[in-house]
């Protein structure tokens, strides 16, 4: 879908459109804590597996708590913003606080093998599909 474009701008635009098309689809179903909850999540497919990319700028790794059970993944934590003392604030748009969100993915996963990486303010969760859930090709006898 995003491949096959020589022009990087075209690639990017195609990607933005692809995301737009998937915007708040019911793919995650009603089991996931309402969309619009913090932090926002994008889910991608990579072969048999899923990659969830969570937008969480400015959070300390130690303040993140990720748990997995069955096909449920919980991302909880807090984000704090410290202003130095004796400053006059001109603009304050960034928000701090706590969050707790649960994702239920519509496939069987191998919770032991979920990997999480936090880089540049993005939390990436690599969610491998359970071996028994992978489609098998059936030979015609």
């Amino acid at each position, binding site marked *: 879908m995003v491949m096959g474009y020589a022009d990087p*701008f075209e690639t990017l635009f195609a990607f933005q459109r*692809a995301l737009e098309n*998937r915007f708040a689809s019911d793919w995650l179903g009603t089991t996931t804590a309402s969309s*619009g909850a913090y932090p926002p999540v994008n*889910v991608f497919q990579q072969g048999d597996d899923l990659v969830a990319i969570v937008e969480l700028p400015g959070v300390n790794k130690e303040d993140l708590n990720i748990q997995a059970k069955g096909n449920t993944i919980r991302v909880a934590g807090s984000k704090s913003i410290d*202003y130095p003392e004796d*400053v006059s604030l001109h*603009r304050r*748009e*960034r928000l701090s606080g706590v969050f707790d969100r649960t994702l239920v993915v519509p496939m069987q996963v191998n919770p032991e093998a979920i990997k999480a990486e936090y880089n540049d303010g993005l939390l990436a969760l690599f969610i491998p599909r359970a071996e028994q859930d992978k489609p098998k090709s059936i030979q015609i006898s």
Partner: protein
Amino acid sequence: MAEDRELQVQEKREVDKAQEQTRPLRAFLPTADIYETEDVLTLILEMPGVDRSNIDVNVDGGMLTIEGRIDFNKYEGLQPVYSEYNIGPYRRSFRISNRIDQDKIKAEMRDGVITLTLPKAEEAKPRRIEVTSG
């Protein structure tokens, strides 16, 4: 500070299309905090997904422009199945006064958050004026 407040999603705001772009690409406004002390003005902008090599900070004619590009190679081979936020470059400009020592602006990037330190020019610092009796 109310640290236990529940965080809310902030809808990403698109860059105002005052100047028509030739490409229909979307750029977003990073959320910003700005505060001032006696010596410095500090700007903090959130640009999740941007690493330090993809940031441009420019000062031109009193305009400070911060741009962050997304490395789309990281998304290669990923097919979107569900999305709650869009991805695109970040851009935001601020008019800064000449009270800022523009040669000494410093930038630091961490966890998708850039902190810009803008030191005030010497003459702009508040000075206590002694009243002498005449």
